[in-house]
């Protein structure tokens, strides 16, 4: 038994807490292994509080604490800042909602809801898995906000604290209203249909005749809330559209509903008929179902982020050698602040003290950290790598070089009207044609009988109510959006699909978009390195700023860096140095092994390591362009004008030319403003532009473009405001997505044709003035349902054919 266990351990040592591989079995409690002391501490904390159920619900549920940076949450004692974070307080009991992006399994839910066992001040906590939030109610006399945040951080669930977070709840409220409206409409439609049965069956005996009027008046009663409450959105939207002199699809719908309701009232009160209230309520019900289907949102994703959600909430200040914290939006010019390893520079500032290596990759797209010396200007948005530095701000947060981008007019205007939805274009003509037909029918019948003319007029308006027209778009696009979602392409709204189908030009950002971010895949090929050898290799690459050195540095595990001497760097070849008496070389195959036979079969970059002229093996660094980039580009460049905008220098131009053809416009050293202007220029030339980017430096371009897609390694991480978030793993499907958006549009056109056929059939009854409630009650739901079924089925069928399901 013991032997078996030992073999198992040798095969793979897995951290009991986070499930990552452990390098040895040194850190353990009993038979439970941990990859690092951070994980062990969390386990001890949970164990001490009898919370080990955490480990029984899901296996290795924890979050790795390996790269954990000790954070200072002192700013949470600041009363004003606290006010902004919490939801509600009465001085004693406070409720607060934290966004916890790390939530990923059932164990997370369990631990977040059992916080009260670790902090007696917590009264109640409730997690929402889909939104990745936790609401906590706590007693101010027993604990503080700061303590709770520290507790969450200590168990690996650091809340995402930023000031931009509080604006989300609006959409939830709208959604709730839709639920009410759908309930009322469904309720009324069902009951009215029951009361209309005598009418459908044409029962005409004495007893039924007595009851019929009662049923009719009950129908009116039930239809009132539908007309005044459930359908109100359509009237409002139609009214708003007309005021702007736009005939949107809600105009013919509103006319239809209005005429249905008024004619039914007239028929029932004048006792000339039973009315069409069943059709009306069913129509409203279907329309809201369609709206609901279209309104799918990705609760955990945020498409509206600006720099505020990327920037820290508070900074560490230094005054008379005492460290205090200050909310970032209170930061003034000439404030002295301390930036620690991994922290962001919140405002343009001048370096006062310390060694600054600023990683601007997210801001400018430049991939290597930049060294700054005392007195240098550091732009906001950079991330300090290394020790703590002291800086003095020269501009306010909102006036800094990067953040000024958000003062651009692109961000202030509403982008809804960029492209008119297809359905609105169609409905414009549709409405006028229907009104024309209705008038002609009325004029034709008027000399014969005024009541027949009235019948024909209203019947045309009723039957032409474009419910099928209005339903085909939400169901087609709603299905498409779900299909995209399954392929890890998340859209802000269904509207984006229509815009995507219309694009003519695609603009790529380089760093992070077509290349993979920092974590290029590095593995060591050869006999595995001993700890000492790792130490030697790591010490050498530590001195080089070459991107490959950085990649190697990142994958070698944490060791003490040794002093080196005789450091030599031969550009394009490699580096060497004497470390602790050993001659260590790292570089190309030729440089290290002196073997000039080029191994052509291997496309990946290989960096060789030798210690005392003994070749130990090589680090294999897999191409940092996204997989299948070439295929994606070659299929795109036939149909679209492609361009690349890079914040980097043009060092990669040649390797990019292997992938992109000559027509591709490549611009390097582009500032965020240049990118925005470039998109604007393209648009002025009549292009519909799709921008694909990832960082804050693309924020302006993403917002300005017709469709802005942000690419992300982890969709729950920060991504700037955009129309869609694409998981980097699905980048290879980009072409399929664009093609499918066109397919969706064709499906919509087909459904329009189907709905027009129904309309023509209905109109032929209507113009003769012979539209009976029964025909209307059959024809209207039939057309709606068949269009819905057609739209949903064909969208899914096409997706299956294209391999998207």
């Amino acid at each position, binding site marked *: 038994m013991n032997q078996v266990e030992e073999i198992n351990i040798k095969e793979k040592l897995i951290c009991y807490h986070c499930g990552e591989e452990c390098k040895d079995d040194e850190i353990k409690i009993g038979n439970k292994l941990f990859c690092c002391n951070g994980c062990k501490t969390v386990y001890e904390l949970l164990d001490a509080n009898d919370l080990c159920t955490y480990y029984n619900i899901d296996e290795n549920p924890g979050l790795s604490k390996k790269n954990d940076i000790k954070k200072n949450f002192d700013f949470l004692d600041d009363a004003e800042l606290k006010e902004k974070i919490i939801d509600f307080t009465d001085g004693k009991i406070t409720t607060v909602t934290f966004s916890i992006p790390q939530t990923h399994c*059932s164990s997370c839910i369990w631990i977040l809801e059992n916080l009260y066992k670790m902090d007696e001040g917590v009264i109640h906590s409730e997690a929402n898995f889909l939104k990745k939030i936790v609401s906590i109610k706590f007693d101010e006399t027993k604990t503080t906000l700061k303590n709770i945040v520290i507790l969450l951080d200590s168990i690996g669930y650091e809340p995402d604290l930023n000031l931009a977070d509080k604006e989300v709840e609006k959409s939830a409220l709208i959604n709730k209203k839709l639920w009410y409206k759908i309930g009322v409409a469904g*309720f009324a439609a069902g009951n009215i249909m029951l009361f209309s049965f005598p009418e459908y069956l044409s029962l005409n005996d004495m007893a039924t005749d007595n009851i019929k009027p009662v049923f009719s008046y*009950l129908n009116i009663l039930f239809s009132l809330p539908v007309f005044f409450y459930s359908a109100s959105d359509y009237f409002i939207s139609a009214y708003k559209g007309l005021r702007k002199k736009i005939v949107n699809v809600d105009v013919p719908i509103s006319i239809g509903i209005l005429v249905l309701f008024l004619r039914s009232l007239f028929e029932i009160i004048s006792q000339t008929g039973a009315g069409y209230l069943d059709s009306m309520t069913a129509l409203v019900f279907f329309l809201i179902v369609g709206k609901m289907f279209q309104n799918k949102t990705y609760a955990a994703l945020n498409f509206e982020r600006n720099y505020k959600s990327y920037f820290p909430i508070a900074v560490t200040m230094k005054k008379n050698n005492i460290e205090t914290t200050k909310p970032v939006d209170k930061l003034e010019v000439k404030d002295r602040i301390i930036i620690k390893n991994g922290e962001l520079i919140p405002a343009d500032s001048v370096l006062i003290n310390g060694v600054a290596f600023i990683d601007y990759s997210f801001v400018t797209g430049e991939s290597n950290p930049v060294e700054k010396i005392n007195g240098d200007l550091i732009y906001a948005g950079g991330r300090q790598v290394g020790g703590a530095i002291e800086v003095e701000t020269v501009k306010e947060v909102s006036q800094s070089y990067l953040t000024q981008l958000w003062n651009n007019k692109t961000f202030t205007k509403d982008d809804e009207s960029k492209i008119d939805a297809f359905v609105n274009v169609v409905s414009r003509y549709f409405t006028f044609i229907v009104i024309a037909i209705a008038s002609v029918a009325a004029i034709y019948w008027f000399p014969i009988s005024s009541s027949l003319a009235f019948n024909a007029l209203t019947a045309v308006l009723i039957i032409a109510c474009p419910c099928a027209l209005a339903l085909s778009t939400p169901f087609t696009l709603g299905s498409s959006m779900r299909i995209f979602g399954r392929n890890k392409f998340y859209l802000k709204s269904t509207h984006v699909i229509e815009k995507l189908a219309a694009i003519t030009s695609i603009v790529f950002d380089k760093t992070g978009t077509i290349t993979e971010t920092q974590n290029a895949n590095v593995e060591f090929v050869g006999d595995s390195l001993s700890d000492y050898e790792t130490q030697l290799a790591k010490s050498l690459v530590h001195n080089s700023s070459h991107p490959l050195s950085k990649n190697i540095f990142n994958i070698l595990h944490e060791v003490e860096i040794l002093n080196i001497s005789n450091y030599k760097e031969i550009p394009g070849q490699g580096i060497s140095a004497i470390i602790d008496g050993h001659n260590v070389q790292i570089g190309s195959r030729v440089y290290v092994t002196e073997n000039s036979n080029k191994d052509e079969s291997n496309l990946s970059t290989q960096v060789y390591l030798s210690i005392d002229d003994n070749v130990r093996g090589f680090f294999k660094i897999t191409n940092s362009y996204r997989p299948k980039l070439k295929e994606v580009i070659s299929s795109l460049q036939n149909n679209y004008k492609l361009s690349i905008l890079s914040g980097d220098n043009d060092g990669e131009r040649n390797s990019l030319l292997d992938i992109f053809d000559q027509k591709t416009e490549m611009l390097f050293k582009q500032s965020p403003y240049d990118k925005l202007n470039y998109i604007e220029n393209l648009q002025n030339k009549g292009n519909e532009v799709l921008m694909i980017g990832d960082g804050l430096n693309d924020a302006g371009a993403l917002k300005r473009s017709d469709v802005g897609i942000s690419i992300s390694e982890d969709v729950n991480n920060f991504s700037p405001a955009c129309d869609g978030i694409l998981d980097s793993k699905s980048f290879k499907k980009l072409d399929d997505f664009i093609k499918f958006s066109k397919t969706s549009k064709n499906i919509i056109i087909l459904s329009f044709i189907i709905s027009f056929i129904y309309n023509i059939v209905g109109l032929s009854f209507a113009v003769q003035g012979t539209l009976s409630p029964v025909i209307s009650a059959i024809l209207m739901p039939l057309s709606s349902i068949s269009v819905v079924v057609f739209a949903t089925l064909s969208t899914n069928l096409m997706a299956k054919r294209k391999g998207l399901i």
Partner: protein
Amino acid sequence: MEVIFVLIGFSSFVALMFLAAYIWSVKTGQYDDNYTPSVRILFDSEVKKNKKEQPEVEHKKI
């Protein structure tokens, strides 16, 4: 025949009750989160006792 009016009254009343129940359920947030409760219901309420009981049960079996 009058009985039908009574029945209509009752049926409408029952239907309205269901509508009210539905609106109440939306209002109390039962449609806000349709995933987490499905996980939450599977959590054991008291873990401490289980731990102590389990070994005893095993002994008896052997």
